[in-house]
């Protein structure tokens, strides 16, 4: 995976997080969204680069939840 793709996936996760801050359960909302719309490869890629990436706390929590579920 190129740096461009990694950067873009992190950006996308953060962008979702910034748009659902008023949802009653933003972490579940972000996790559901990524689960429903991202391909398996995109999910695997984002899991691979999430540690150390600059992520919104809700986005990080959502990705961790999905990663735990996937493994």
């Amino acid at each position, binding site marked *: 995976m*190129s740096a*461009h*793709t990694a950067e873009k996936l992190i950006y996308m996760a953060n*962008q979702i997080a910034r748009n659902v801050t*008023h949802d009653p359960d933003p972490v579940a909302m972000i996790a559901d969204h990524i689960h*429903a719309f*991202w*391909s398996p490869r995109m999910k695997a890629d984002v899991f691979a680069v999430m540690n150390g990436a600059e992520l919104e706390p809700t986005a990080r929590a959502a990705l961790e939840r999905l990663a735990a579920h996937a493994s």
Partner: protein
Amino acid sequence: MDSERDLYRPQPDFGTPPSLAERAGAASVTAIIDGREVSVAPGTTVMRAAALSGGSIPKLCATDSVKQFGSCRLCLVEIDGMRGTPASCTTLVAEGMKVHTQTKKLEKLRRGVMELYISDHPLDCLTCSANNDCELQDQAAAVGLRDVRYGYEGANNLAQPMDISNPYFDFDPSKCIVCSRCVRACDEVQGTLALTIEGRGFDSKVSAGLASDSFLSSECVSCGACVQACPTATLQEKAVKEIGKPERATVTTCAYCGVGCTFRAETRGEEVVRMVPWKDGKANRGHSCVKGRFAWGYAQHQERILSPMIRSSIDEPWQEVSWEEAIAHTASELKRISAKYGRNALGGITSSRCTNEETFLVQKLVRAGFGTNNVDTCARVCHSPTGYGLKTTFGTSAGTQDFDSVEDSDVILVIGANPTDGHPVFASRMKRRLRQGAKLIVIDPRRTDLVRSPHVEADYHLPLRPGTNVAVLTALAHVIVTEGLADETFVRERCDWEEYRHWADFVSLERNSPEFLEPVTGVPAADLRGAARLFATGGNGAIYYGLGVTEHSQGSSTVMAIANLAMATGNIGRRGVGVNPLRGQNNVQGACDMGSFPHELSGYRHVSDASARALFEAEWGVPIDPEPGLRIPNMLDAATDGLFKAIYIQGEDILQSDPDTKHVAAGLAAMECVIVQDLFLNETANYAHVFLPGSTFLEKNGTFTNAERRIQPVRKVMEPRNGPNGNGYEDWEITQLMARAMGLDWNYTHPREIMDEIARLTPTFAGVSFARLDAEGSLQWPVNDAAPDGSPIMHIDGFVRGKGKFVVTDYVPTDERTGPRFPLLLTTGRILSQYNVGAQTRRTANVVWHEEDLLEIHPTDAENRGIKSGDWVRLASRSGETTLRATVTDRVAPGVVYTTFHHPATQANVVTTDYSDWATNCPEYKVTAVQITPSNGPTDWQEEYEAQATRSRRIRGHEGAMEPAE
């Protein structure tokens, strides 16, 4: 109703339009006309009643597309108990009325009238282009005119110069009878008011604009309404003059925008003579625009590719091959790549320009043949946020209304749409309602034509800064909620009350007030408050929106904010209201419905839905991947990462239409097999290894679904040209050839069988079949047991999802920001005469109206930079730069510049960024921070691009013979 395929005859003309009661199917009044008992709706004219019951009262100035005028005095009748001879076009049928349409007295009167007309009309009938298709000729026959006593020597209006300035029709004033039908059609049907009668009495003459104007230089938009209304050869298509009277007429659906006008393709042999809007078409009601009416000549354009071609590298010239070789080569490449890189290295893009059946087959080939969900469609880059936003709030991505609904609207809110250019035929219907007194709010960074044009003026124009839609909509909601204007009764009944309270609390925050947000949005708070009050209290409120809503980093949020506004004001579930996405391409609605998205099967069922998958698996006999596939931008990212290697693109030009051209080009260049199926060597084909020549909408059967979810038939009027001796293929046949070569046992013999499969697999299409479409003309989905006749209006008794859902949409500014280096905001759009990437319209005479993309810039910004109209300017963003010519205008606000993307030479998408909607990745075309500087001409990139394109388009054996013009 005339049948769909028939020998040519003009469509029936009932003389005057149906009354409101007739359209509503109301109770009848009964009269006796020439001894026939006739029952008609109240408000029906005697003329119309006679025509409806099989009669035909002579007439010239009346036609059923415009209001009665009562000027020609040919339609006089006698009515028992009434004095004199009233005009049947202006006399309404009353209960028990006895009408005589033919008496000795009437004969004499009519002959006298006709005699005067003919005394000032050229008698060249045999060589006239309207010969045998002329109402004046017909009426002269009907009244039995045998002699003109006045002779032809006196003063007359003959031998006047013709106006041939319009590329599609001529104006011959010598043949004009000054019936004013053209003027009234321009006023009432089109709403442009370009035509007038100049002079008085004997000197009266039809004129386009000022005396110094020709049709081309006038405000005429070439919609063809006047040509259609003209009873003589005065306004007539040039093609009729060149070819002759049509021989057959076939009803079909236009392949341009999402309005989905139906036309009669009037043909002679396999040659189209003209396309005439079909009066019974429920989307267009007999109206048309310059594209659908006239711009179909691209089908015969010399640059159209008619033979399949292959090459092993994009640096080589194309090699023409037989269909057999092309298909065998393509299938073997796809199999090789799948074996080497895995099935997820393959994907496809369905076309919003092709039929439902063709789109369905492409996604079926990808899912069942390639074994992946990597399928997407151009809706990704236009209305994907509509799908997400409306499904979340209402439970279905469906727009809520039919077009007729606008006739009952009291307040029309148009946001991020420019319907007079993008959806012109619907815009004419909207303008008709506005002239009747409906109020108008326009939210747009530009002063679009709708803001102020003849007899139409917006009550409020909110010229927002691009990228602040959510802020403006939240501020509107703030006013409505805090001033107590919300329709809480509706909300309590239809929506989730707790979610509403949560939302209402949010929008009521001081930071969402118009005053607080004014510095962000640029919209004066007082205007915004006025607009909010008008929308909430003005009666039926309807919201119409376009890509100015969706193509933003908060596109989905904006759609949900619109849905919130409609619910909070109770404007859902009846005529005259609703949330109305104006879809861009002819079949973008259908492409979405047909399962073109990587996460959805047809009818918007997620691939993780096991019961939906099971249906398809049973019908197709293969497993369906339960995980979503890649979207277009993700496919390109995966390609540059070396993971995505082959793509089958039907009828879509992603290199020109998608953002960040350089990234698209790099993605395509990284693939081993790019298959393009199109009419022309489009920009994407510069990177293709296989070119499969497609067929036009005139050459195929199928259906398109328009913006109001109306499924309409497309009927073949000529054989596909993409093969020798009539052995060409419709696009669905090409996909089937590929599928068969890849080992799938497909045996469709006609698109109707594909629709039957769609109906079996898609609950919202369960009641759709070609037989029903032939019988009923069109159907609006959902069509199923719950809605056997289709669904013109959605959510009538409650929302599809149960309770309507209010979603808090917080304004999150885009990351694309202006700064010292890029101080201006670029936004993009369309123009009336051109369509999308222009592949079709640039290959017609429509280029006389728009031969290049221009950059609109405000006088202040232009002056600061020393730029005048017509100057070349460099347009640069963080992504790239291009050059084009400027036009200085105050239609755009200071700080905002605007251009169209119809011409590949402009390369507007070199400049756009890869920012996109947070929920759907719909690109943010509408906001790019740019700088404008004077320039001498094309950039290095444009020159390199041009050279690469020219090199890439070489065809072995044709070198030098055919240099495409772009």
